[in-house]
């Protein structure tokens, strides 16, 4: 334990009560700890640190000293004795030593979870993310979160999330409070979050606190590391497809720090070499260039005891290119975010955060064919000013209130094409300028020792052609049956004013964000969840069981045969309907010890229906009835296990383990798909092809693909050289080599002497259904280091 700011008595005390406040940090690197517990046993009062590591705890005034306990999972619990006579600022640093046998490390997060009004929340430690085997050895925090109950992905290998029956565009993903519009690379196979740069990820599936809004189904709040303010340090890794390097250190020790973290894939370096070696071979088809990169940067400054300034930025892009003799093609897409935050402590009770964020997402496609060029792109930019207050009113009330205003700028389907000589040119696209705003108030209340209630309301509004407003009540309650068990319930209404134009179950970079307009109303949802949590096995295991029902309104879908690409009248392709979902999630988790992990099971159902088209002449077949969307998965089981073994000592002499074996297993009902049930022959007019197989599609998504099963295995060897730490990770993705269905298609069969591509009147002899999979067993080796 270290005390880095002298306890000071700075504010007048309140009659009979005093307030303790301060910041809890990691002793090793000075990073603030989010969600650390501060507890005073005599009064039973406790709290947790907020997103900035700040806490405010009100306890009874007295003449006898009391112990304040500071704890955080993976860190040594620290007791600090004070004389509770007046308000005090106590800044604390907690140190690790997790494997040091003589130190008791408390797995406090389970106990805190039992006491907390928060439910439907998942948190992931980036340390564990790196140990869990993933596709091509790329550790990915979104892929790991998909292993939690209620979080099925969009398709195999995808980082898309379909939370509790919500659509893929209903997830609010924020990085240092800046909205990330497209959180993935390479069509969703990898997320934009470089685990070396991420400090904390918190995901809400329900019971949303009032400070969050804008999406219906989940909130994924990602916080970047702040940078080591104690000493210069580096982290990195060399993997099969990418390498990473993070550098961080103090600008002024204890006062300010920086972090720069980059990641880039390098397949393009090899493909260029292969292309070059095959130059001149007329039979050789060059391999297109592809790479992506992420760059995270952050600096932060202590501006005295009461003020702290953070500046952070993220820049990521995918670049795809092909240069041929007659044909040049480039396609790039990416996000840029920037955040400036100023924390100010007005008093031990009142903490304020003023944030300005900027978010930008765009894609651009450019094609050049001899004498002709074609450019298409879309973009969205947000500039957001946000003010959040955290007020520890007394030991029974903690208030959060604030508001924000955002300017949105949408460029939808910008198109420009023409010949180089200017003889032919055309262009199209729509621009929208919109404003959104919200204000919120929430109060976390305690009623005796057993009851807690977090109630609030969010008022949101959006202006684009027309003003829409939404009243979003939120409430979450917990009843502690005893120290090891609690019952919970929550209700949340959410409004969403932006819609993703996408018909695919796969996240594509060309998916367009489209604002609410005169014709397109905001989506909204209501979710009720109840559940219980119980500690078992000496508080080592946490069982969570939740049940939810969700109603969705003004859901966006697209008419049959929607033309979503380069369409100036995109609204006419929309259909608006309703949806509902319900389900049950059960999990058992163990966070500490040599064997860690969780088992999760989800039983879920989601349906959508009562769709009406915006344009009366368009068709949304079967949309008046309720149907299952593609992502309706009835059952989902996930198992994650990590096991440390081979005792050794690290370079500080602390006990640790040499090896970690990790394994995951996922079983899930197959995705739903829409298949033809009939066919007819279409002769067409003079000059057109005869089509012997024109499919007649049956009921929407009535067919389910075969069940999904995949298990991954990883083994990590930890090394402790003099200069730092490193590990070698060997992982196998899809270790059973199961062929999971990515999609189905029907292949016509022809007689041996018929070539259908050359025969206008070719009639098949039969049809065969085929299943296409994406990934066989894939092994990868990654070397990670830290100094």
């Amino acid at each position, binding site marked *: 334990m270290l005390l880095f700011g002298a306890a000071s008595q700075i504010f007048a005390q309140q009659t009979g009560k005093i307030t303790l406040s301060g910041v809890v940090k990691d002793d090793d690197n000075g990073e603030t700890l989010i969600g650390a517990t501060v507890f005073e046993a005599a009064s039973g009062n406790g709290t947790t640190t907020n997103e900035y590591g700040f806490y405010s705890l009100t306890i009874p005034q007295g003449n006898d000293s009391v112990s304040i306990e500071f704890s955080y999972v993976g860190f040594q619990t620290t007791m600090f004795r004070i004389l509770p006579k007046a308000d005090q600022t106590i800044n604390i640093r907690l140190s690790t030593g997790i494997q040091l046998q003589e130190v008791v490390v408390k797995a406090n997060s389970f106990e805190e979870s039992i006491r907390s009004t928060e439910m439907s929340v998942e948190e992931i430690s980036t340390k564990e993310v790196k140990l869990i085997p993933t596709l091509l050895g790329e550790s990915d925090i979104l892929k790991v979160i998909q292993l939690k109950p209620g979080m099925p992905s969009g398709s195999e290998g995808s980082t898309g999330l379909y939370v509790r029956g919500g659509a893929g565009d209903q997830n609010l993903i924020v990085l240092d409070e800046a909205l990330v519009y497209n959180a993935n690379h390479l069509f969703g196979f990898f997320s934009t979050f470089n685990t070396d740069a991420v400090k904390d990820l918190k995901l809400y599936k329900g019971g949303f606190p009032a400070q969050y809004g804008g999406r219906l189904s989940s909130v994924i709040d990602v916080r970047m590391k702040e940078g080591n303010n104690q000493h210069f340090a580096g982290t990195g890794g060399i993997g099969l497809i990418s390498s990473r390097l993070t550098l961080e250190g103090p600008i002024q020790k204890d006062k300010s720090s920086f972090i720069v973290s980059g990641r880039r894939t390098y397949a393009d370096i090899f493909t260029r070499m292969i292309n070059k070696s095959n130059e001149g071979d007329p039979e050789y088809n060059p391999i297109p260039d592809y790479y992506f990169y992420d760059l995270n940067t952050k600096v932060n400054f202590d501006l005295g005891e009461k003020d702290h300034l953070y500046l952070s930025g993220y820049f990521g892009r995918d670049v795809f290119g092909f240069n041929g003799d007659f044909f040049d093609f480039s396609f790039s897409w990416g996000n840029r975010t920037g955040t400036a935050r100023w924390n100010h402590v007005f008093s031990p009770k009142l903490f304020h955060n003023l944030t300005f964020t900027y978010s930008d997402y765009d894609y651009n496609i450019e094609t050049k*064919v001899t004498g002709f060029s074609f450019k298409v792109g879309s973009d969205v930019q947000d500039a957001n000013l946000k003010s959040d207050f955290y007020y520890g009113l007394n030991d029974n009330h903690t208030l959060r209130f604030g508001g924000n205003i955002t300017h949105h700028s949408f460029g939808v389907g910008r198109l420009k094409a023409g010949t180089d000589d200017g003889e032919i040119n055309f262009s199209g696209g729509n621009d929208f300028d919109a404003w959104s705003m919200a204000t919120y108030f929430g109060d976390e209340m305690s009623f005796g020792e057993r009851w807690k209630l977090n109630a609030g309301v969010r008022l949101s509004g959006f202006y684009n052609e027309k003003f829409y407003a939404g009243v979003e009540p939120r409430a979450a309650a917990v009843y502690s049956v005893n120290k090891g068990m609690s019952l919970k319930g929550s209700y949340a209404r959410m409004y969403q004013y932006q819609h993703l134009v996408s018909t695919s179950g796969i996240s594509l970079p060309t998916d367009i964000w489209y604002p609410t307009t005169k014709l397109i109303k905001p989506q909204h949802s209501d979710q009720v969840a109840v559940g219980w949590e119980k500690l078992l096995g000496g508080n080592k295991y946490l069982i969570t069981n939740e049940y939810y029902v969700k109603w969705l309104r003004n859901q966006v879908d697209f008419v049959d045969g929607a033309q979503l690409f380069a369409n100036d009248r995109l609204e006419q392709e929309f259909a608006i309907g309703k949806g509902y979902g319900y389900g049950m999630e059960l999990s058992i988790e163990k966070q500490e010890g040599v064997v860690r992990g969780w088992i999760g099971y989800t039983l879920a159902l989601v349906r959508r229906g009562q769709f009406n088209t915006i344009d009366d002449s368009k068709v949304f077949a079967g949309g008046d009835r309720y149907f299952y969307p593609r992502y309706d998965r009835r059952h989902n089981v996930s198992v994650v296990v990590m096991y440390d073994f081979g005792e050794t000592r690290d370079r500080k002499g602390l006990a640790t383990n040499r090896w970690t074996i990790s394994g995951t297993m996922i079983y899930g009902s197959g995705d739903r798909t829409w298949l033809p049930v009939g066919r007819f022959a279409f002769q067409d*007019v003079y000059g057109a092809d005869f089509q012997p197989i024109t499919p007649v599609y049956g009921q929407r998504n009535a067919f389910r693909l075969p069940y999904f099963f995949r298990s991954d295995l990883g083994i990590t060897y930890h090394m402790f050289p003099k200069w730092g730490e490193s590990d070698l990770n060997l992982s196998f993705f899809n270790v059973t080599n199961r062929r999971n269905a990515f999609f189905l298609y029907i292949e016509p069969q022809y007689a041996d002497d018929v070539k259908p591509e*050359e025969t206008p009147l070719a009639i098949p002899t039969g049809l065969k259904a085929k299943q296409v999979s994406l990934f066989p067993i894939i092994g990868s080796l990654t070397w990670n280091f830290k100094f």
Partner: protein
Amino acid sequence: MKYFFQKSNISGQLLWPSFIFLLFAFFITACGNLEKEINLDLPAYQPQYVVECYLEPGQPFTLLLTRSSAYFDPFPTDPLAYVENILVDSAEVVITHNGVDYNLANTPFLNPSTLKVANYYSSQLVPEDFDNDFALKITLSNGQTITSTTRILPVVPIDSVVVEFDDVKDTLARCLTYLTDDPSTVDYYRRMIHQNSLVDSIPDQDFTTNDDYVDDKVIVFGTGYDYKEGDTIYNTMFHIERAYFDFWNSTFNAINSNGNPFGQPSSIVSNVESSDGRAVGIFTGLSYDRIMTVVTK
């Protein structure tokens, strides 16, 4: 503002999903054999009636009435048996225009110049009338009826066809097709371009479009540098109604969705109605301008 399309067998809007699919296909190929044959147990299917009737002024009335089949029903190996298997006979087909009934007899008809077939035919010629509706009524042998209404649109003539050789590779030429659009109306077009033959060659381009992007009169359709000296290029520009535009697009969207994980299947948007809801098809006028051009330097 003008309009231009590159060579493609599919509509411009479908290019992007197809491109992504090609990327995936490349990836899948690179990963080895990731395909396998499976058995699908599809639900029972009740066949529908399928109508194709195109009214071309100055040509005889013809109509093709067929039935659909369950998706995995076997295909007769003999082409004649295949055709007989899908034809629906013994129906009464009447097209009414300006109070005149045109009865189409149930007789096989093969147009020798187009090689298109019909099973209902009248030797009477379709009158050229752009101002009055044509009404179709089919009474099936089981008493069910299929109806539809359409109106023939006037031809929008091709202004000119220009063949240009590439400055650098002067052996290859592109073809530019100019059209004057009426900016005061929303018009729909189907564009086809064939090389050397209309009958037995698959079109180089075949797509529909509307005049959304056009804010002056002239639309230009183009190709890549795909033609060499001596080639014959057939430019065809159909002026189509919205119903045909929707039918054609939905039909080809349904066809192209097979095997494309990024495609969205769709129902066929038809303009025929039946008393039992089991008919699909198109009843429309056929107005087009076609220009044949021989590529010369």
